[in-house]
């Protein structure tokens, strides 16, 4: 049996990845999610080509009304800036800060979870207690404390997300590690004399990837919401950079006369988060199937 599997040619990494993505075909919901996320990634990449105007330029002269028109497809905001261009450029901010923050949370969370689950004992107690304490704060209150203390900036948002999300990641990784550390291949690696770091990173972590990919996708959604919410509360990126939440904050008091100014950025952020969550749901459905 072993000889047969050894003889079978393994596909390359890229091919396997493509095959996995192709599996998504079976989940229509996942496909819609993937399409939404892909749409915004493309918009972010090609922002300079797609945006018709400079996102921070004020077009105050009279082009007709402030709402959607032939010149300004989605209208102009309270400072005469083109909303379409701001949404397009804003996608770059969400899709850089969000993934970086999620990645940092994963690096810290995986380290904590692997250590706790692999060594157990007092390491586990320390890591779990620290996680419990952080998790006992309501998320939004924690964001308020951190950002108001250290000031609003992209870097501080990343720090805050890492601080808040890593205990949650750590819990998942810990429980997966507790299960995987009893597997035969871990025992084999120990017998070969591999170091603990090697076992954690090469034997355990790759085998925990299934649930972690789904969780990462959901977490991207949460992080996107968090970035939007901070922007909306006035704790996001400093102006004038176009930040979807900040765009809503600047204009939602004018809802009664110019609802388009808030509606379009809200639609943009909602569609991206819906995309991440549907994608996560599709991925989970597929992982349950095999």
């Amino acid at each position, binding site marked *: 049996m072993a000889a047969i599997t050894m003889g079978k040619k393994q596909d390359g990494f890229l091919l396997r990845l493509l095959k996995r993505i192709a599996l998504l075909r079976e989940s229509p919901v996942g496909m819609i999610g993937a399409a939404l996320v892909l749409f915004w990634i493309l918009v972010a990449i090609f922002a300079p080509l797609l945006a018709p105007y400079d996102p921070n330029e004020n077009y105050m002269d009279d082009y007709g009304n402030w709402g959607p028109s032939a010149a300004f497809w989605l209208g102009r905001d309270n400072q005469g800036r083109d909303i379409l261009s701001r949404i397009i450029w804003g996608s770059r901010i969400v899709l850089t800060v969000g993934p970086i923050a999620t990645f940092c949370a994963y690096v810290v969370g995986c380290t904590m979870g692997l250590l706790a689950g692999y060594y157990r004992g007092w390491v586990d107690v320390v890591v779990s207690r620290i996680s*419990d304490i952080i998790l006992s704060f309501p998320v939004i209150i924690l964001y308020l404390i*951190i950002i108001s203390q250290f000031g609003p900036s992209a870097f501080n948002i990343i720090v805050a997300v890492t601080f808040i999300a890593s205990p949650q990641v750590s819990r998942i990784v810990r429980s997966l590690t507790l299960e995987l550390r009893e597997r035969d291949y871990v025992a084999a690696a120990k017998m070969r004399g591999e170091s603990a770091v090697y076992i954690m990173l090469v034997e355990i972590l790759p085998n925990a990837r299934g649930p972690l990919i789904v969780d990462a996708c959901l977490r991207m959604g949460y992080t996107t919401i968090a970035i939007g919410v901070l922007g909306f509360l006035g704790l996001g990126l400093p102006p004038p950079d176009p930040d979807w939440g900040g765009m809503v904050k600047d204009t939602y008091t004018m809802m009664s006369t110019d609802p388009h100014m808030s509606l379009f950025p809200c639609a943009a952020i909602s569609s991206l*988060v819906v995309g991440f969550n549907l994608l996560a749901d599709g991925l989970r459905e597929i992982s349950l199937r095999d």
Partner: protein
Amino acid sequence: MLKFFVKRFGYLLLTMLAVSLIIFVVNEYSPGQVTRKILGPFATQNEVDILTVKMGLDRPIIIRYIEWLGQILRGDLGKSTLWGAPVNSIIWDRLLNTSIIASLAFAVIVPASIIFGVAAGMREGSRLDRTISLASIVTTSVPEFASGVFLQSVFVIWLGLLPGTSPLDASGGWSIASQLVLPVAVMVLYDLGYVVRMVRASMVETMTRPFIRTAVLKGLSFRNVIMKHAIRNAMIGPFTVILLQINYLVTGVVVVEAVVGYPGFGRMMLDAALNKDIAVIEAGSMFAVFVTVSTQIIGDFGYMLLNPRIRFA
């Protein structure tokens, strides 16, 4: 049972202690931090230093922390720099206001999540299941400020049925009751989907159990299988999840209250954070953590009562 309570209560105290230390250190670590905020950005460093010494803020942080903790325990929450009044005179009104919308939202979320969750989970993969699951993913994906804006544009601007802001003051011509609709709707929309999915997952799991098969095989109608056998067992798991929503409803309402200008706890925390009102931030955070940890304990306790296997173990 008693041992369980003593242990959980000790855990509550320890967590509160650790949290209070973190909150204090983050807010007041550097000696000039507090006085700088009181005097404002235009005061000279000399003035800041004088007030720092006068207020005793140049002493070691551990001593100041113990003093502060003593004040909190005696019920003195300090003075708000933003409102110029004792925190005690502000925070309780705000909490009362928030608890009004929180309890209304909770009263909607609990029955709605059970109805939708059970309806979706009783036949996994049915059209009803897929519709409810999709709807719950989409509604939880929309950030609160966005659903606030969407609801406002339909019900406030387009139909003119509701007021756009909720200052809890009937002088604008809108009744207090009509002002509560929008914030409650936003909270329910954002939170309901998550609870529905939890109830659904538990229901799906319950439907595969042998006792359900037995009930079906002995000839009970599908309706009776669901109502008499499935629901009661399926509700044990989600009970804790439902209870934990209280945290979100009481302390996570910052965005909702900002959208509609509701004078509640969340709005107070946001204003305090934006204006660096340290005493309010500290008191509010301590309260928020207290709510979280106590609902966790109540959740554990309720779970124990509901689940005989744990109760008698």
